[in-house]
C-alpha cells in the first residue's frame, strides 16, 4: 500500500503552519502522529495534495500546570499523557481512559490533539474531553481563539476548526474537591473500536447531593455525545442506585446509535445504558472519597 503523491512540508513554527494552511487550505492535511491519517492515505481513501508535518513545530508538545489548569500541547503523545504525573493530577479521567485507546505502539506515536482534531465518533479522547469540559486553543492566520469541547465537535468527523486553523493546546481545569470520574467501554477485543463507551465526571456538594455531572458517550452517534438528559436526572439528588438507573434510562432514550456488522443499534443502545450503570457508581465513589479528604 502506497499513498498517492503529495507535497510535503515540515515547518518549525506555528506561524509557518498557519501560512501554509492559508496558502493550501482544504487541499492540505496536518500530520500529527499519523495513526489515522497515514493508513487512510495508504488505502488511498485520503489523498491530500499537501501534507504539513507538525513533528518539528516548536512548543506544540509542552505539558504544564498553571494555577489549577492543565495545559497540554496538541502534539503531546498519548503515551506521554498516560504516564505524566501532571496529567494524573490534572486530568485523571484521561489517564484512566488512555489504556483503552488502541495499543501502546499506536499511543507512542498518536497524539492527544490529533485524536481531537480527527474527531472519530468511536474515539475515546474526544468523549473524555467532552466529559472534562476541556477548552481548545485554535490558531489561524488571524490569531487565536478558544473553543469549548461542547461547541468544538460538530457531527461526523466535524469540528469547529476552519481549513486554515490548527489546534495548538488543550486546557483542562483540575478536578474540584468533591468530584469524581470514571470511564468504561465494551469492545470485541481490547484495542478495537469500542461498540460503546462512557466517560463521566460528577461532583457532590457538602450534603452529598449531585451538584454536577457530565456524561459523554462514544460510538453511539455522529461524534462524541453529551447525555444532557442523564445529567439532569442526577442533578440535585443523592446518587442512589435509583438515580443511576434513571440516568441510564435517560441515556438509552436520548441516543440514536448506528448499526454495523459488529452490533445492531438496539444492542448499542442497551450497552450504553449498562455502561452508564457501571461507570456512574465508580465516579460517585471517587467523589465521596475526594470530599472526605
Amino acid at each position, binding site marked *: 500500500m502506497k499513498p498517492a503523491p503529495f507535497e510535503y512540508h515540515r515547518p518549525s513554527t506555528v506561524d509557518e503552519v498557519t501560512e501554509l494552511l492559508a496558502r493550501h487550505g482544504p487541499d492540505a492535511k496536518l500530520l500529527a502522529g499519523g495513526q489515522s491519517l497515514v493508513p487512510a492515505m495508504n488505502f488511498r481513501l*485520503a*489523498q491530500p495534495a499537501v501534507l504539513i508535518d507538525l513533528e518539528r513545530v516548536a512548543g506544540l508538545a509542552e505539558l504544564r500546570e498553571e494555577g489549577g489548569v492543565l495545559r497540554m500541547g496538541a502534539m503531546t503523545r498519548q503515551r506521554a499523557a498516560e504516564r505524566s504525573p501532571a496529567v494524573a493530577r490534572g486530568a485523571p479521567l484521561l489517564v484512566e481512559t488512555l489504556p483503552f485507546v488502541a495499543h501502546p505502539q499506536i499511543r507512542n506515536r498518536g497524539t492527544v490533539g490529533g485524536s481531537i482534531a480527527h474527531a472519530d*465518533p468511536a474515539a475515546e479522547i474526544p468523549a473524555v474531553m467532552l466529559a472534562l469540559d476541556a477548552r481548545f486553543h485554535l490558531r489561524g492566520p488571524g490569531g487565536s481563539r478558544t473553543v469549548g469541547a461542547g461547541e468544538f465537535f460538530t457531527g461526523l468527523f466535524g469540528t469547529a476548526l476552519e481549513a486554515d486553523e490548527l489546534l495548538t493546546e488543550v486546557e483542562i481545569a483540575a478536578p474540584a474537591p468533591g468530584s469524581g470520574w470514571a470511564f468504561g467501554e465494551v469492545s470485541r477485543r481490547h484495542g478495537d473500536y469500542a461498540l460503546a463507551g462512557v466517560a463521566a465526571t460528577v461532583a457532590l456538594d457538602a450534603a452529598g447531593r449531585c451538584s454536577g455531572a457530565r456524561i459523554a458517550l462514544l460510538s453511539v452517534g455522529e461524534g462524541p455525545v453529551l447525555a444532557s438528559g442523564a445529567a439532569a436526572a442526577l442533578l440535585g439528588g443523592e446518587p442512589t442506585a435509583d438515580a443511576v438507573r434513571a440516568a441510564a434510562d435517560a441515556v438509552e432514550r436520548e441516543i440514536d446509535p448506528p448499526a454495523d456488522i459488529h452490533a445492531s443499534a438496539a444492542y448499542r443502545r442497551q450497552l450504553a445504558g449498562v455502561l452508564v450503570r457501571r461507570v456512574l457508581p465508580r465516579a460517585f465513589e471517587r467523589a465521596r472519597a475526594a470530599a472526605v479528604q
Partner: protein
Amino acid sequence: MIVDGEHVFPGPREVVWALLQDPEVLSKAMPGAAKLALVGDGAYEGSIRVGVGPVTAAEWKLSVTLEDRVAPEHYVMQVDSKGPIGFTRGSATVDLAEADGGGATRMRYHADLQVGGKVAGVGQRLIDQVAKMMTQRGLNALGGELERRLAEGA
C-alpha cells in the same frame, strides 16, 4: 445496509410528488455539487462528489431509475453508483401519505443497499452513520426547496 425512516414535509402531496421527480431538485438534495439529468422516463444519470472526514471527496457516477410509479403516492427507486473506492447499489421504496388533513405529507422510506469495494472493507463501521447523515441532509434540503416553492406559489 437498511436505511429506514419517516419524514413529514410541510406541503400537499401533489407538490411533494412533483418535487421528488425533478432532477434539479434531486441534485440539490444530494451531497456535494451533484449533477443529475433526466435521460428517459423516470431514469436519471449524473454524478455526485462525496467525501467524509479523512476520506478525500471523489466523484461517484450515479444512475437512478424510478419504477412502479403510482402518482402521487408510491415509487421504487433503483440506485446504482460507482466511485473510485467502491460501489453502492440497491433499491428504495418511497410511500407518500397525506397528513394533517392534506396540508402536509408523510414520507416513509425503506432502502436496502449493498455497499461494496474498498469503502465497505475499510469504512464498514461508518457506512450507517454516513447514510444517516446524507439522508437527513437530503430531506432537509428537499424540505427547504418545498417551502420555497410553496412561498412562490402563494
